[in-house]
């Protein structure tokens, strides 16, 4: 499998989306935890850097969980907003579905190429 193939890109992005789903679920679970700051996954910016510096295998990029520290905290030091997390989850699920669709289409094309009746 070539390092810059469709499959490599989709696989890397799926891995990141999966991790992000876990981060969002963690945020929702910690809705009432005092002092908890919401988590997100850093991947797209890392991918951009890697591609700009000469194209590597996107699967080498490790998506990382981090705390953006961008949202204001409430009285208990918690910055999780349930509506915002629902929005993030909807967007992430959309990305995930799109990536799966692209993957399925790729396999369909390969199938057609092999099916030379």
């Amino acid at each position, binding site marked *: 499998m070539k390092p810059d193939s469709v499959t490599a890109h989709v696989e890397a992005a799926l891995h990141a989306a999966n991790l992000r789903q876990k981060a969002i679920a963690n945020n929702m679970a910690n809705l009432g935890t005092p002092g908890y700051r919401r988590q997100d996954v850093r991947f797209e910016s890392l991918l951009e850097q890697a591609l700009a510096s000469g194209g590597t295998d996107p699967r080498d990029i490790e998506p990382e969980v981090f705390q953006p520290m*961008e*949202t*204001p905290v409430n009285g208990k030091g918690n910055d999780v*907003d349930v*509506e*915002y997390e*629902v*929005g993030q989850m*909807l*967007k992430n*699920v*959309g990305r995930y*579905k*799109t990536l799966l*669709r*692209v993957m*399925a*289409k790729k396999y369909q094309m390969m199938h057609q190429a092999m099916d030379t009746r």
Partner: protein
Amino acid sequence: MSIPRVGSPIDIAVSGLRANSARMNVISSNIANSSTTRTPNGDPYRRKDLVLSTNPGQVAGVQIGETVEDMATEFPKLYEPGHPDADANGYVQMPNVQLPVEMINLVEASRAYQANAAVMRRFSELSDTTLELLK
């Protein structure tokens, strides 16, 4: 709170959800304090409003502003000589909260909340329909 990606219907609807949720907080404070005759500054509870704003010319959703007190309506006076907060003539100043007004605002805020949730649901359905094209 700044919303990272401007333009996504989901981000805009989320701002609407948060704004209406904040409005419901203010309304519930008004309702809970509809009989509060004593606050630290000596006056009865003054009803609160939430300021919502947006950037005209940009499709950017709604921003939650500050909570302001309603200075336009007067405190109504109730004749109740036995009340601990009654003045020399037996009148008590009550909060300027009218429950029917608050209830109508509450219905409006919750309907707006539902409408924003419907936007998110419809947008998800549209995305799914778009992805169907790749089947």
